[in-house]
């Protein structure tokens, strides 16, 4: 259990950062991360067992990668449900307005793409779309963010 605990503590920065990029509130982000880990402990006992099973066919690194993906998926899923209730309650401090003007899916894609080492195929799984759809979302998210920052993108995608 020590391996899992240290993994969860080390990856808190990624989990929290991702949740914050979705909800723009630190307390809500923290709670979503804890909820996602709680769901993981309830639903994926098999991964926890594999992590501590020396005879497991999967390497420890691969199991941890799967755990990481599962938790990020849960953060996205719970965050999506929570933002509906919190839309009016969250008080943004005005920073990163260009980023928060985009919708949640675009924010998630942009954050995972540029701030984490998550592979393209994994991002697709986390936000539950196929890779072709993801390409479209990423492209339009980048364009939106650039436009929200006040740049003219008319001639950049010639």
């Amino acid at each position, binding site marked *: 259990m020590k391996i899992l*605990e240290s993994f969860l503590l080390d990856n808190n920065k990624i989990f*929290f950062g991702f949740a914050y990029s979705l909800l723009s509130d630190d307390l809500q982000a923290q709670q979503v991360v804890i909820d996602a880990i709680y769901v993981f402990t309830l639903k994926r006992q098999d991964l926890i067992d594999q992590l501590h099973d020396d005879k497991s066919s999967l390497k420890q690194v691969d199991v941890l990668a799967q755990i990481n993906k599962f938790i990020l998926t849960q953060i996205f899923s719970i965050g999506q449900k929570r933002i509906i209730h919190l839309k009016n309650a969250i008080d943004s401090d005005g920073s990163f307005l260009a980023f928060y003007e985009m919708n949640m899916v675009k924010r998630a894609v942009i954050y995972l793409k540029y701030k984490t080492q998550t592979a393209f195929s994994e991002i697709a799984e986390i936000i539950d779309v196929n890779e072709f759809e993801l390409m479209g979302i990423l492209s339009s998210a980048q364009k939106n963010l650039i436009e929200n920052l006040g740049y003219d993108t008319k001639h950049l995608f010639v």
Partner: protein
Amino acid sequence: MNIEMPGSSPKVAIAKDKENNNRKTEVLGQTDPDPLSQDRVCLHSRKLFSLISSNDEVSSFEYMRRHFQECSFCQNQYYKLLKLKTEIIKNIPDVMPDKTMQDSYAMEISEMLAKVESRGHFAKKPEMFLDKIFSFFSTLNH
């Protein structure tokens, strides 16, 4: 009596519109002439943003490298897009939880995992018990 102001005639308005349309748009503080109005537009530039967004795959970069040496249009677009990529990264929030939050997170995680561990022991007990029963029957058969 109609008094026509010098700047308000339709002709002047149309001329102003044209001037506005032809005005060079600014991208990252540099004047950027409309690429479509230039003599030479390179179709390879369409792939540039995908190339920049890709995870610096050597093969795709190698493919474009030769082209960059020859095509000034793509070079200019490429460097503009690189700057924009930096802007994008700069404008993504990357917030760290503070010390209090980290402590409470650590406490919650350790409590949660302690529960999982105790649940795991309970889950394993029947399995061990079944193993013993099976081994007992197997000895009876022999």
